[in-house]
């Protein structure tokens, strides 16, 4: 188990960052926040690139920084690698030489360049000049280069933000593949919850230089739903139900994939790519895409109907002008979030513990990767 | 770590090379180093041929402005003998106890000449100040000082105030007139002789004599050779040669020891 303990603060003229949080780095840990929330600052501090921090950062048993002991390990000695938003490849070197640069300075050298080139699908570009690459290719080189340092922790700072959609999904699935093959703990910073929802196991949420939530990805996103309901003006996220469900069938014969939710089923359009039965699929349904019926719909084009009970009805306590509520419905033990108008809520006289049916189209079940 | 130690190493080794190259230069036997005023250099070069034939002494000429050479000697320049274009700097070195006792000698008396490139000059031309007139800086150059005294003697100094172009030394003044940048000026007669130009020699009674002196620098290795050169330059035969290069007769100096009375009077009427 990899533990990263963060207890430090730092400040610039108009920005104060303060964190006291221990992260359990299994798989990919997401760091979510809007711009100016201190996401990059956090990564840079862990990497050792921020000079003016006060406090301590401890990675497993290794103290990276402890200002009380006047200790600050140099970034190049931390065995932590950071992939920047803007790649930062060395323009005087080819792709292969960029990778060699990292491999040469790596002390354990378990990986070889050919394997990493293959893993990151860069074999054809190995001898290309880095200035000729597309943004997506550059980020793949940057990732490959970071991997070749064989870090104990990989930090990704908005690695997809400069890419087009196709490159984004390609790199994202690559990141998942890399994490699984090398079992490397990754801290992934992004302002896009969709990206994080797709790949992260845990999520840390930053707001205005402070950590406001940390935990399992689905749980944390659901916490954000409540926060959004209370503070609609903040526009934190699109409220959603974040799911990870086993695949019952990749294609039911009519172009739909079937997911198992205990005794119930969720259908979604079949996805390209190879899946195996019972593999868990990460997906989400926007709260605004789900509607509520009091009786089970029989004659509807909408394919997904789930039966459940209302668990909570949240509305904004601060913003009286908001005419909507967030309803939590438990279906087969799973929380679902439904965003409806106050008008509809009153029309159906929805109340807690009431049994309801949720309905949503197959296309409302979204995945970011495929 | 290795590279960080390498860097100062390169620095030190290059400095070492530098001092070694200096050391190697000092190991060879030094020729007699003559610091000579720029306007006497061409004459000296001609004279040194005979000197070498007579004495077999190797010499090295360091030519420069009298003032700059003075400053350098003051700060330890490795010169054996200093052949100045004036008498002030040699006197100064003597006062500062930097020269061999009694080595200060007048080796030449400079003569001033009026030069104009576009017409045949006459002394009477001086009475009418031209638009521009070149002289050396009277405050720093001996020939400039003599030029000022000449104009004062003729009572023309005030009239010339707005026409004067002053060169930092007599060579610059000569270059200005010769290139016709300035139509006429007072230059050294030796410059006319060397460059085979015609001009009018200013009578030496118009100004204090321009005594050019030499001194032998103390505490040097080549003092004996320096003395030989001094004797050589002051020998009657060489003195005659120097005169033939446009300098006044040195014997004249002995007669005219008394300062010029007329200069101090500052007469107002010109009488060339």
């Amino acid at each position, binding site marked *: 188990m990899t533990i990263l303990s963060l207890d430090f603060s730092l400040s610039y003229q108009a920005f104060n960052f303060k964190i006291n949080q221990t992260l359990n780095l299994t798989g990919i840990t997401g760091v979510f926040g809007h711009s100016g929330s201190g996401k990059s600052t956090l990564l840079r501090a862990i990497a050792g690139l921020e000079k003016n921090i006060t406090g301590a950062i401890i990675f497993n048993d290794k103290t990276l920084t402890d200002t009380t002991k006047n200790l600050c390990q140099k970034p*190049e000695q931390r065995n932590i690698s950071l992939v920047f938003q803007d790649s930062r490849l060395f323009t005087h070197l080819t792709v292969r030489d960029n990778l060699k640069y990292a491999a040469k300075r790596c002390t354990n050298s378990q990986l070889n360049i050919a394997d990493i080139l293959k893993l990151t699908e860069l074999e054809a570009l190995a001898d290309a000049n880095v200035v000729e690459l597309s943004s997506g290719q550059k980020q793949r080189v940057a990732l490959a280069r970071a991997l070749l340092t064989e870090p104990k922790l990989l930090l990704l700072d908005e690695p997809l933000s400069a890419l087009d959609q196709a490159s984004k999904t390609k790199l994202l699935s690559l990141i998942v593949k890399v994490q699984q093959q090398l079992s490397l703990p990754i801290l992934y910073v992004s302002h896009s919850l969709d990206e994080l929802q797709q790949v992260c196991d845990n999520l840390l949420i930053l707001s205005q230089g402070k950590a406001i939530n940390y935990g399992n990805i689905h749980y944390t996103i659901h916490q954000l739903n409540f926060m959004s309901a209370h503070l609609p003006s903040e526009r934190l996220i699109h409220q959603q139900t974040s799911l990870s469900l086993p695949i019952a069938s990749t294609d039911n014969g009519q172009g739909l994939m079937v997911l198992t939710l205990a005794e119930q089923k969720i259908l979604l359009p079949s996805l390209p790519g190879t899946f195996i039965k019972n593999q868990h699929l990460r997906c989400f349904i926007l709260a605004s895409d789900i509607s509520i019926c009091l009786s089970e719909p029989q004659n509807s084009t909408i394919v997904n109907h789930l039966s459940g009970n209302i668990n909570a009805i949240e509305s904004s306590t601060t913003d009286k002008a908001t005419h909507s509520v967030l309803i939590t419905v438990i279906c087969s033990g799973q929380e679902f979030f439904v965003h409806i108008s106050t008008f509809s809520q009153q029309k159906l006289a929805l109340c807690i513990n009431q049994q309801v049916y949720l309905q949503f189209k197959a296309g409302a079940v979204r995945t970011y990767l495929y | 770590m290795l590279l960080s130690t390498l860097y100062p190493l390169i620095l030190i080794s290059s400095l070492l090379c*530098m001092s070694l190259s200096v050391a190697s*230069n000092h190991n060879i036997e030094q020729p007699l180093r003559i610091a000579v005023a720029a306007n006497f250099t061409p004459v000296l*070069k001609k004279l040194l041929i005979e000197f070498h034939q007579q004495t077999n002494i190797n010499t090295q000429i360091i*030519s420069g402005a009298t003032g700059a050479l003075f400053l350098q000697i003051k700060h330890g320049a490795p*010169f054996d003998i200093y052949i100045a274009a004036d008498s002030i700097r040699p006197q100064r070195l003597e006062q500062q106890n930097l020269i061999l006792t009694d080595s200060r000698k007048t080796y030449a008396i400079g003569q001033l000449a009026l030069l104009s490139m576009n017409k045949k000059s006459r002394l009477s031309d001086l009475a009418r100040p031209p638009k521009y007139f070149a002289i050396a800086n009277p405050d720093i150059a001996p020939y400039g000082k003599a030029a000022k005294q000449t104009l004062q003697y003729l009572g023309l100094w005030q009239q010339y105030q707005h026409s004067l172009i002053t060169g930092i030394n007599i060579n610059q003044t000569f270059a200005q007139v010769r290139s016709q940048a300035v139509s006429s000026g007072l230059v050294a007669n030796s*410059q006319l002789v060397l460059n085979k130009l015609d001009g009018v020699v200013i009578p030496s009674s118009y100004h204090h004599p321009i005594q050019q002196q030499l001194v032998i620098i103390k505490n040097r290795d080549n003092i004996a050779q320096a003395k030989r050169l001094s004797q050589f330059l002051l020998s009657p035969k060489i003195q005659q040669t120097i005169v033939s290069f446009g300098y006044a007769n040195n014997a004249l100096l002995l007669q005219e020891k008394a300062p010029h009375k007329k200069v101090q009077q500052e007469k107002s009427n010109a009488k060339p």
Partner: protein
Amino acid sequence: MPSPDLLALAVTLKMAALTTVILLLIGTPLAWFLAKMTSRFKVIIEAIVALPLVLPPTVLGFYLLIAFSPQHLPGQIWQQATGQQLAFSFSAIVIGSVLYSLPFVVQPLQKAFEQLGDSVLEAGAMLGAGPIDRFFTIVLPLTKASFITAASLGFAHTVGEFGVILMIGGNIPGETRVLSIALFDHVEAFDYAKAHVLAISLLIGSMILLAGVYLLNLPHRKTRK
């Protein structure tokens, strides 16, 4: 060219080459320091470095002459360390040239380092490269053109230097008489023919050197655009 002028040429080239090497060794860390410095004292150091650009060479030469002379401390320290007098030696003109040509090396390098910024260096650190390693493997290759420019300007400026060397060199053949001073001597001695030969060869040499610098910089400019 007669042999005294060839000797002056040899001294000039030796002086300029050594000066350039020393300038790169001193100027690189200085330029780096200035590029990374944020303190308000930066402007003061920058002004001191730029001083030779505006200071009359004779002023610098005059003060160096005083400093180097055996009567004063720097000259005495040198004499004790090396056993040689500093003033009027080859070392003196090299030191004088280093000071006089300093801005020509420091300024292009400082600008290059500033333009390079911290981002690629941070990338280097993330790949396990220490500061010296980063300098030689990232900074140096990426600012190569500026190093060539700095070295060439430093070299050319040193070759063309006159005032400082006139003061501290003493015009000693084979040791401190350089081309520019030999040229001056020829003019002073009305030997215009020799002066022309020297002047034209200096002119052509400098032209070739500078054209070479711009030629070397050419492909870099193209790829940047």
